[in-house]
C-alpha cells in the first residue's frame, strides 16, 4: 500500500512540475516566471522527500533543507533585483 501511495504521489508532483514549467515558458511577465520557479523548487523538495521515503534512507533531508534555504534566498534576490535594479545599494 505504501509503495502504491508513493508512486501516485510522485506522478502527481511530476505533473505539477510540468505545469510550472509551462508557466515558466509562457508567463507574460517577469514576476510570473519568478513565481513559477519558486513553486518548482518547492516541488523539487517534495520529489526529494518522496525519493528518500522510497529508498528508506534519511540521507536526503539535508539536501532538501539546503534547497529550501537557497531557493528562498534566490527568489528574494530576483525580486529585489527587478524591483530596485540593484541588489546591494
Amino acid at each position, binding site marked *: *500500500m*505504501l509503495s*502504491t*501511495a*508513493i508512486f*501516485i*504521489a*510522485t506522478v*502527481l*508532483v511530476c*505533473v*505539477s*512540475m510540468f*505545469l*510550472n514549467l*509551462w*508557466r515558466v515558458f509562457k508567463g507574460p*511577465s*517577469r*514576476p*510570473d516566471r*519568478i*513565481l*513559477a520557479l*519558486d*513553486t518548482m523548487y*518547492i*516541488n523539487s*523538495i*517534495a520529489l526529494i*522527500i*518522496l525519493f*528518500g*521515503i522510497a529508498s*528508506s534512507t*534519511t540521507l536526503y*533531508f*539535508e539536501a*532538501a*533543507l539546503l534547497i*529550501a*534555504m537557497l531557493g*528562498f534566498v534566490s*527568489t*528574494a534576490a530576483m*525580486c*529585489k533585483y*527587478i*524591483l*530596485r535594479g540593484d541588489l546591494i545599494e
Partner: protein
Amino acid sequence: MEFWIELAVSVLLVAGAIFVLVGSLGLVKLPDFYTRLHGPTKATTLGMGCLLVGSMTLVTNQQGYLSLHELLITLFLLITAPVTAHMLAKTALHHKLDIAEKTEDKALAKRARERLNP
C-alpha cells in the same frame, strides 16, 4: 510496521501530492498575476506540510527515534512563503501588471504604487 501507521502515511502522502497539484493548477489556470499568487503560496505550502509530516511519521516508526528534520523544513517553508508572496506582490505592483476586470477597489493598487519608498 503496523497497518494503521502505513494507512495514515499513505493518506498523508497522497493528500499532500493532491494539494501540490492544486497549487500548480491554480498557477496555470487563474486569470491575472495577483490571483495566481494565491495558488503556490497557500495550497503548495499546505501540501508540503502534509508530505513532510507523513515522512516524519514513517521515519519515526522505522528508526525508533523521533525524527525532527522534516519539521524543520516545514517550519522554514511556512516562514518563507508569506515573505516571498509579499515581495512578489510588491514587484508586480511596481511593474504595473494588468489587474483582472472583476477586481474591486482598484484605486488602492494605484495608491500603494505611488507611495514614496517601494
